[in-house]
């Protein structure tokens, strides 16, 4: 059963190995002529102004929360979708009820203005 996942592990090692190899080799082969100005933050040549980590708009957090809600719903739907043929009418009605409840939440979220980006 788990034998199927051995290639995944091998490929993952190959991928990460390639990444490490590229980073290490390029830092060895590349020249290194460093001075103060070069190591400063690049902003199209202007001296940088203000703090880097500014306050993040609350929108991003709202989107993350909404994503969690809807993604959980997707997780619930996968096993349902695999067995949909066997479940037949019962499965359809069940999912319809679930989706109606979800849709009410979706409409509420929309009306509250959580989906607006101004």
């Amino acid at each position: 059963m788990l034998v199927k996942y051995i290639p995944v592990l091998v490929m993952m090692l190959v991928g990460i190995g390639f990444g490490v190899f590229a980073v290490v080799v390029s830092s060895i082969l590349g020249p290194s002529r460093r001075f103060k100005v070069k190591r400063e933050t690049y902003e199209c040549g202007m001296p940088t102004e203000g703090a880097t980590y500014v306050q993040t708009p609350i929108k991003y957090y709202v989107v993350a929360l909404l994503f969690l809600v809807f993604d959980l719903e997707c997780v619930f739907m996968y096993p349902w979708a695999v067995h949909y043929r066997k479940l037949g009418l019962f499965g359809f009605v069940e999912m319809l009820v679930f989706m109606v409840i979800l849709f009410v939440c979706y409409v509420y979220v929309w009306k509250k203005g959580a989906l607006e980006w101004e």
Partner: protein
Amino acid sequence: MIEFWTILIIKTLVAFAVSMLIVAYSTWIERKVLGHVQLRYGPMRVGFHGLLQPIADGVKGFFKEELIPDNADKPVFLLAPIISIGAAITLVVVIPFGDTVTIMGHKIPLYLADLDIGILFVLGISTIGSYGGMLGGWSSGNKYGVIGGLRASAQMISYELPMALAVISVVMVSGTLSLVGIVENQAGLWNVVKQPLAFFLFIICGLAEINRTPFDMPEAEAELACGFNVEYSSMKFALFFMAEYCHMFVFAAMVTTLFLGGWYGPLLPGPVWFFIKTFAIIFFCVWERSTFPRYRYDQVMELGWKVLLPAGLLNILLTGLWMLVFNI
């Protein structure tokens, strides 16, 4: 046991080499097609019609100076491109390139792993890949990088949902999550005929997930100076781009697998059909890049949440009803 490992390692290395070659030549296709669309030639100098250009670029990347800004969070800064490329290459493992072939008496399937959760694996690992860009932007200590990383993460999760919904309707028709199973299910009729709306949704969300142009918010050059990879140089910068093109290849392969019948096709052998379809999708990605202007960020988010998400839910209900009524 030895045979198992030999076959496994040979197959892994071949799949790695092939995908790296495709990644390299996707950049060539992109520059060439973009050039010709704009009535230029694109790369012409290195090799015949610039055919050796990707290799020259790769070698050059190794010999460039690497810069780590004083402001950067060094360990995360170094780790981010590795996460990006690692996740992108891991995805290649589940792509079904073709059916089983017999070489020297061994029956060898032309895919590395036929996982029972194939399509879930693809969605999950590609999300891990987006951590790369996010952490890269965050650790650079650069305003534009931070904004690019934030935008990237918000966009990824917004478009992940309709994409998952589109996949669910395909799973309903196929009755399995395994990619090989989904392809075998399309021996008669391709899913693009059964699921036109899901195909449409998947293409749009896929373009957003791999940051192609109408949705390339995370690296909008005009606003963010290049977004999350603004402070990266030499091979670390190249790794981000290889990861992006690798994601594009995987996306094209997924469209082929889920909707265009995978390796099925008349006359030619399976893998040839697979690559024809995959390259048609890669060409499409470049074509639309040269056609559409970039969206504004609020438009991107509104399209995802207000149009694509309800469309995905509706598609699932319609598919369910259709299967119930016609009993298929």
